[in-house]
């Protein structure tokens, strides 16, 4: 479990930065397909962010299965990195 936690707004800002997308376009129900920057390189950015901020590993397989922003939030919560 991660020693470091962020809230939902901070998590959305982290994703907006990783995917180079305006924050207003990154909501929990936003689909991956509607975020152009969430491509193979965006996925690497997210993996790097999670490693650097929380020390948690997002595997290539789990990363490929993520279909929406909510899936990333769920992943953070599962690893104890998301505060209520």
């Amino acid at each position, binding site marked *: 479990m991660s020693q470091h936690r962020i809230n939902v707004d901070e998590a959305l800002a982290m994703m907006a930065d990783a995917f180079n997308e305006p924050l207003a376009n990154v909501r929990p129900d936003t689909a991956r397909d509607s975020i152009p920057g969430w491509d193979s*390189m965006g996925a*690497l950015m997210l*993996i*790097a962010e999670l490693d*650097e901020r929380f020390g948690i590993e997002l*595997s*290539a397989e789990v990363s490929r299965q993520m279909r929406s922003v909510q899936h990333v939030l769920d992943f953070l919560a599962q690893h104890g990195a998301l505060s209520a």
Partner: protein
Amino acid sequence: MSFSRLDGFRIAGVSTVVPSAQLDNLALGDRYGADDVRKVVSMAGVRHRHVVAEGQTSVDLCTDAAHRLLEALGWAPDTITGLIMVTQSPDHFLPSSACVVHGRLGLAVGCAAFDVGLGCSGYPYGLYLAATMLKGGGHQRILMLNGDTPSRFTSPDDHATTLLFGDAGSATALEAEPAGGFASHFGLFSDGAGAEALIMKGGGFRDRFPADPRDLYVRMDGAGVFNFTIKRVPPLIQDTLAVAELGVADLDAYIFHQSNRFIMKHLIKKCGLPEDRVPFTLEDTGNCGGPSVPVTLTRALAERRGALARDLRVMLLGYGVGLSWASAIVQLDAQAVLMHGVSAAAPSTAPTLDPQTESQP
């Protein structure tokens, strides 16, 4: 842990060459889309790549590098008793590339010659093997060649790999040091469970003539390789330093395999390494596989050594296909030759030294 301490040898010189043809990735926007190319160049950090001409191979590049080095050192070919060639782009399945180079260099029949099939981790592995042969006795001088042409692995339809890879060859001369000398440290690791992360599936004996022509080209799981790298390389650096009883500041440089600028920057930050001790060369030579380590050694370290005017202690780091990863802490004394040049497209015979591209002590 797979760490070793070895003395009884010194590195007499390192010679590297890249092919003369240089491509500008930004000129490939018409083929791959200007935005996509800019994005890859920005993230991976590769603007230019040197690539082999048709018919030019790792054997040609390494033979050229070896000729230059033997000439610079004044070593007669018949004094070499060991030739190791580390490559994943051999001329043939058989004979070994080492035997082909042995013939090209005119080495003696008393010289052992063999290949090692490793990619991005190959340089530290090759040094380790050469060092153990020298330490074992019976050898005085060994040439360790590390060459690869990964530009020939890639499908022209796959811009993620095509824009990343360049080609290079190297030759490293090692000799016995009866008095012992500097004690080097090596760390060697493997994880075959990750073999599919970077693979050319076809063309070998598992599937000699694949039905899908894409199987004749490399396939890379970028996210998988990235995860492997950030999981394995930081402990490799920390553990190698610990085994050698050294701190980060005790080494003059950390010579990384030039995998990708984004990955390397992440590793530097994660490991707490001083940025000025981690040279980058991939901007204009690309990711040339295992030889990216010696290419960085010759291109970046020659200047640094001249400024410091003393022996240099460096950590060499290779990681990638296999999955395989390795480290070496070695010393380059003030007499060691470091040279880099450009290799002509025709298979090398008598190399021409280009003073514009040579850097020697």
